[in-house]
């Protein structure tokens, strides 16, 4: 034994040190014991071999509502806590890894949720750990989750209610707008002004409702952005153009600049992008009284196959106070309550812009100096359209039935530039490729080269008329079935018959109205084959229409007088025109007989112009046809055209006598 080699003094020394260590150990044990006993967490030690609780502190006994260790043993067995803790014997819990679980326990008469956390000390064969009553935590969390769910439900219900209400309000409002438009056209100037005011107010109400609807849609995550090809520059110009009248009225300059590096055609939601631009531009216009507004669009960067495009709308308006700048992006806030009174508006516009920009993956910001102006800028990523958008994209949200033309390639045969433009303009929003031929010969050339879904053919044209061109096209194998819509002034009743005879599918009277044009196109483009049933159906319909729909085309009397400013002046001008038109007609009649083409052409031109200026559409169209024929007569029979003008003039006279209001 090593003790044998220890000297007496060494033994004394070691004895001293040993007892000192024992003292230190004791002190630590006491400290541990104190903490163990007084801890505010329930602590325990369990003997693994006997599955009995070795020690437990006061807090643990209190947690379990017992006074003795034995009772604790009983509860640990009853609620299978020991079994749960046995899990610690698995290898996964070797070392210091601790096990945590929660158990619902019936303590007293209450169900409590107890959370256990324990570890296994293999060398001592004990499990030691802590238990804590988390009932109140759990129920607080439960209450919180419930509160959140309730709040979400309430918010959803609110959004739903808003969406429904908006719709419910819009329906009668559409009625109000519709009838106000009718009243506006009905004649009396004062009444027209009132109707105009009703329409203005209705527009504001509609804007408000639409904005509320947008906000509720955004909140309910119900806005889905489209990704359709569109022409950026056209979208922007359309937006800007719509502000031209008000800009002119307020004598404000507008500068638009578009970065050359931008591509023509992007993929995006034109309706929503347009909405953002409209909102920001209209704010700029609203709050600017002198100076200029500018819209600067530039390429910020090209990344991940997308162009990040920066739009900057700046004005020289009243500006936004610094302390209000953050708040303008919040809903229902305007910089100043007095602004609401002076300028109107909902305070929703900018908030909607922010939501939409963020929805598009972009950011919006504002800088402003009071009294100097405001600058809104936003940057959004737009994918470059891979399909080099052959087709312009449907833009405005209008009546549903005017929105649904299938994409098509159309041949427009029309010699008159203005009429070409009218048709092109009306069809611009749709997915259409439109080729224009100036006359029948050109039409046939284009038809043999390309495939078309439909032809719009003016009846009266130089070189080769629409009737002759149609006859030739119908003789071709490819030309048998293509829908051909004849176009002529509604005055030429005879033309309809002639059109049918040469094999046209349908007939459209001038002046071409948007709705009629689209109705006709929809009718034919939604039918894949030009079957004889469709054709006879169409003709039945068109011939029955007769001239019934053309009465307002004889003279837009109310509109003209409103334009002139007074009914008195209007009456005077119309009376004067009819007199001079009669004289012109007499001159033309004589000149045609004498084959003085140039002078008769000039007179027909004057007649056309005069008719146009008093808004006698039918007469002006008839005169235009006569004028065209007189320009290059080539031995054509002028008389039917002359008689048409004559009949239109008499109809105008009759209509005016019947409807004039002194």
């Amino acid at each position, binding site marked *: 034994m090593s003790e044998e080699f*220890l000297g007496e003094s060494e*033994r*004394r020394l*070691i004895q*001293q040190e*040993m*007892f000192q260590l024992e*003292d230190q150990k004791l002190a630590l044990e006491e400290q541990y014991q104190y903490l163990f006993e007084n801890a505010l967490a329930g602590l325990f030690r369990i003997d693994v071999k006997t599955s009995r609780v070795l020690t437990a502190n006061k807090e643990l006994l209190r947690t379990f509502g017992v006074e003795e260790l034995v009772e604790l043993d009983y509860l640990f067995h009853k609620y299978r806590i020991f079994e749960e803790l046995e899990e610690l014997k698995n290898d996964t819990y070797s070392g210091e890894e601790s096990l945590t679980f929660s158990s619902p326990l019936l303590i007293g008469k209450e169900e409590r949720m107890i959370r256990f956390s324990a570890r296994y000390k293999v060398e001592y064969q004990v499990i030691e750990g802590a238990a804590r009553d988390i009932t109140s935590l759990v129920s607080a969390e439960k209450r919180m989750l419930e509160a959140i769910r309730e709040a979400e439900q309430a918010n959803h219900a609110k959004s739903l209610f808003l969406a429904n209400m908006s719709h419910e309000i819009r329906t009668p409002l559409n009625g109000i707008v519709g009838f106000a438009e009718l009243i506006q056209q009905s004649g009396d100037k004062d009444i027209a002004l009132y109707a105009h005011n009703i329409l203005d107010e209705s527009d504001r109400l509609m804007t408000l409702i639409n904005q509320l609807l947008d906000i509720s849609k955004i909140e309910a995550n119900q806005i889905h952005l489209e990704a359709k090809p569109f022409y950026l520059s056209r979208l922007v110009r359309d937006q800007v153009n719509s502000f031209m009248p008000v800009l002119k009225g307020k004598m404000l300059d507008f500068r638009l600049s578009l970065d050359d590096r931008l591509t023509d055609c992007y993929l995006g939601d034109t309706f929503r992008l347009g909405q953002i631009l409209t909102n920001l531009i209209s704010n700029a216009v609203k709050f600017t009284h002198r100076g200029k507004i500018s819209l600067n669009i530039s390429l910020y960067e090209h990344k991940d196959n997308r162009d990040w495009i920066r739009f900057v709308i700046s004005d020289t308006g009243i500006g936004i106070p610094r302390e209000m700048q953050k708040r303008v992006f919040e809903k229902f806030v305007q910089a100043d309550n007095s602004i609401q009174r002076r300028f109107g508006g909902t305070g929703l516009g900018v908030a909607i812009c922010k939501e939409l920009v963020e929805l598009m993956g972009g950011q919006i910001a504002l800088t402003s100096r009071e009294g100097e102006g405001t600058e809104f800028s936003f940057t959004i990523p737009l994918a470059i359209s891979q399909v080099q958008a052959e087709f312009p994209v449907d833009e405005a949200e209008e009546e549903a039935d005017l929105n649904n033309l299938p994409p098509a390639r159309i041949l427009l045969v029309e010699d008159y530039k203005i009429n070409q433009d009218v048709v092109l303009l009306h069809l611009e929003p749709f997915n259409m490729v439109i080729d224009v031929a100036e006359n029948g010969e050109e039409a046939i050339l284009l038809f043999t080269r390309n495939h078309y879904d439909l032809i719009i053919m003016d009846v009266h044209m130089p070189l080769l008329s629409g009737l002759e061109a149609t006859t030739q096209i119908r003789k071709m194998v490819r030309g048998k079935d293509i829908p051909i819509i004849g176009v002529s002034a509604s005055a030429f009743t005879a033309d309809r018959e002639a059109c049918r005879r040469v094999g046209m599918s349908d007939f459209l009277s001038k002046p071409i109205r948007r709705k009629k044009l689209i109705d006709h196109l929809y009718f034919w483009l939604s039918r894949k084959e030009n079957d004889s049933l469709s054709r006879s159906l169409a003709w039945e319909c068109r011939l029955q229409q007769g001239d019934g729909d053309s009465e307002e085309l004889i003279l837009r009397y109310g509109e003209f007088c409103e334009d002139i400013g007074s009914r008195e002046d209007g009456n005077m001008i119309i009376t004067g025109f009819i007199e001079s038109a009669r004289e012109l007609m007499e001159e033309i009649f004589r000149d045609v007989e004498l084959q003085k083409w140039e002078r008769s052409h000039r007179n027909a031109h004057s007649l056309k112009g005069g008719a146009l200026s008093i808004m006698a559409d039918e007469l002006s169209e008839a005169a235009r046809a006569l004028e065209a024929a007189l320009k290059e007569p080539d031995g054509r029979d002028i008389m039917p055209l002359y008689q048409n003008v004559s009949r239109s003039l008499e109809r105008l006279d009759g209509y005016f006598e019947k409807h004039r209001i002194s």
Partner: protein
Amino acid sequence: MLSDDELKGKSVLIADDEEYIRRHIAKGLRSRGLTVYEAGSGDEVLDMVSEKPHAIIMDVQMPGQDGLEVARLLKEKEDTASIPLILLSARAQESDIELGYAMGADHYLAKPVTFSQILGALREAIHE
């Protein structure tokens, strides 16, 4: 062996001239519920034995009468001979130990010892 509970209430006379050692042992015993008499010398032991402790723990090396001498005296007297005696000593030679037992010690513990060794010896001694 006795449990701590059974030691409770017993009285022990502890003798060592090294105060730290004596106090350490006394403290340990008192915390287990024993009554402890402390003596710093052999003479004090002979005085305090009149308290009739259940056991005596005594260091051998003490000034004045040393532990062995006191042991012999205690065992000679009739009224103290039956008190169990545990001798502690830094002398750990075989001969020292034999001498201790020869003087009438019931246990001879060679230093260094742990408190629990002392406690173990005490239990055995009282139990016997």
